[in-house]
């Protein structure tokens, strides 16, 4: 069996600090693989342990953090690791990322499963996996809390807003995994030392047939809403009632209601 695990290094939100103005201090924040991504890798490594599989870790981007993310994946037990060399990886659109991963799967494939985290640690848009499945024409199971892989198919339990779904899916398939799915292994010293001489392989966008046009920077437009900081006192019954009236009038004047 051959498995891809698509990974993205993100800011470790648990260690993120803010300055006195509330601006996040990104420069001092460690960058690591997201929790759900690690769980996706763990699922792949479990299959490797039980059924035997070649696990290929891949990330889109070529920064230090991307290289480190792939080395971490090798230390955890991935057999091969790739970075797709796009230098503005933080600023490209999700469809471009998904396309790069799908092209990678075609060029280095065939594969039985593409595992990925249900969402990245930072943006958490949860769209890469579904896009990859659409681009490759693979079946999709999204947001799996529990995965069981057999020779030809997998079963997965997925918690959705309206309930829990149990799926059975034949390969090839894309399975996105939540951070509830397992407890990802922590690389042991022996595994770290073993992975020391493993190469992080590089693959250029041109090798994947991606044109520069496709991965140009996207423009980020921020919508800022100026807060008006209107404060209503409500310390007792009387002031609470008065405040309710004031609040309703204010919201009407603003055109909100």
């Amino acid at each position: 069996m051959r498995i891809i695990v698509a990974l993205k290094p993100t800011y470790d939100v648990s260690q993120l600090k803010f300055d006195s103005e509330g601006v996040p201090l990104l420069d001092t924040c460690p960058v690591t693989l997201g929790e759900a991504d690690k769980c996706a890798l763990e699922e792949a490594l479990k299959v490797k342990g039980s059924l035997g599989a070649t696990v290929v870790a891949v990330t889109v981007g070529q920064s230090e953090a991307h290289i480190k993310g792939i080395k971490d994946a090798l230390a955890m037990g991935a057999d091969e690791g790739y970075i797709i060399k796009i230098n503005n990886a933080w600023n490209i659109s999700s469809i471009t990322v998904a396309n790069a991963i799908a092209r990678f799967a075609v060029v280095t494939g065939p594969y039985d499963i593409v595992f990925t985290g249900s969402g990245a640690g930072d943006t958490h848009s949860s769209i890469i996996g579904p896009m990859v499945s659409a681009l490759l024409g693979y079946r999709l199971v999204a947001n799996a809390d529990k995965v069981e892989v057999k020779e030809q198919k997998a079963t997965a339990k997925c918690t959705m807003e309206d309930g829990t779904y149990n799926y059975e899916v034949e390969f090839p398939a894309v399975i996105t995994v939540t951070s509830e799915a397992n407890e990802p292994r922590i690389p042991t010293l022996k595994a770290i030392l073993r992975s020391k001489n493993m190469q992080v392989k590089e693959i250029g966008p041109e090798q994947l047939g991606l044109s520069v046009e496709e991965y140009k920077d996207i423009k980020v437009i921020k919508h800022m809403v100026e807060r008006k900081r209107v404060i209503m006192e409500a310390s007792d019954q009387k002031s609470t009632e008065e405040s309710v009236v004031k609040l309703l009038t204010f919201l009407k004047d603003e055109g909100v209601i």
Partner: protein
Amino acid sequence: MNYEFSEEEKRFRESVEEFCKRYIEPRWVEIDEKGHIPLDLIKRLGEQGLFAIPVPEKYGGMGGNMTLAAIAVEEIAYHDPAVAVAVYTLLQNGWPLALSIFGSEAAKQEILPKVASGDAFFGIGSTEPQGGSDVAGIKTVAKRSGNKWVINGEKAYISGVREISELPEGGGYFLVSKTEKAEWGHKNITDFVLLPKWHGKMSEKVKPTVYDEIGRHGISTGGFKIEDFEVDDEFRIGEINKGFYYVMEGFNIARVLVAAATIGSARWALDKGAEWIRERKLFQGKPIASFQGVNFRFAELYAELEAAKYFVYRAAWMVDNTYLTNSPRFKPRDLDVPVALAKMKGPETATRIYEEVLKWLGAYGYTKESNVYRGWLGTFSYTIGAEGSQNIMRYVIAREVIGKEYVSHTG
């Protein structure tokens, strides 16, 4: 000269940190409160490969080195500042390495894999009730009887006594003993592997007691009487009457890790202190960190901690060169001063940092709720003893630097 950790060392530190955040940090207060490291945690530490790090893989070890062991111990102490788990871990790295250097093939094959997996404990049995600093003055005696040795005596203030009785396999000590007769001197000492409990069976010839201590409650310290305990000659460590030299080298190895534990705990305390002095605001909203009386002291303590850290990792690097890469330039005796510097500086720096941080925290620091006192009491154990007292470190440095002809431990 290179002052940077290698990529693997950094990755290993991260992995230990992740392990600690998951399995130790949520439990360290409970461990200190209940006076017990849960056996499942010991097993996990073994499974994660945090014991026998510098021991060769052929004896079940991790095939790493002392630098990596020091990283592990420092990081564990950061997440268990009361240091019980760190002490447990350091003993399971230092003394297994000493056994792998000086022990017989049979003893290494028998014991080390079980220590590495976390099923057995292996510590040091040197100190006796009449005094630990004077190793030449011990009274435990081993008498040869055919292919066996019969040992009698009493050991005191020994770490791991209760853990041996609780672990599934058991465990034992690098035991320091007089050969045939209890006469003062260092040329009549032989070391043995003493296993009061092995294959899950407790010997009736070793009678342990456990002491009630003021800190680092998670790991036990106790004593035991040894009555006609028989040890196979195969479990003798090294040559007859050379035991004093082996145990001194063993102390040099273990002391590096003791110092690593104290700097890990001290770093936690200083981080806690920094967080507090930034946030505590007095005199019309000024953070107390803005007062020179506080921030100058912070700078001094930070400098001391950095210095202690350099001592620790230089000593670890020297142990690696001396015993693991066997670089011909390094002799065991060359370790005496670098190791004594680390073991002197680490615990004393930690104690100083704790005392200051407790003051920064004000009355809150004096409450049990702040938990800072746990680290203070834990690291203080190492200013008293365990792998040698602080005065003995001073004695070693003075003896080696000023000269033997001027410095005597009996004068």
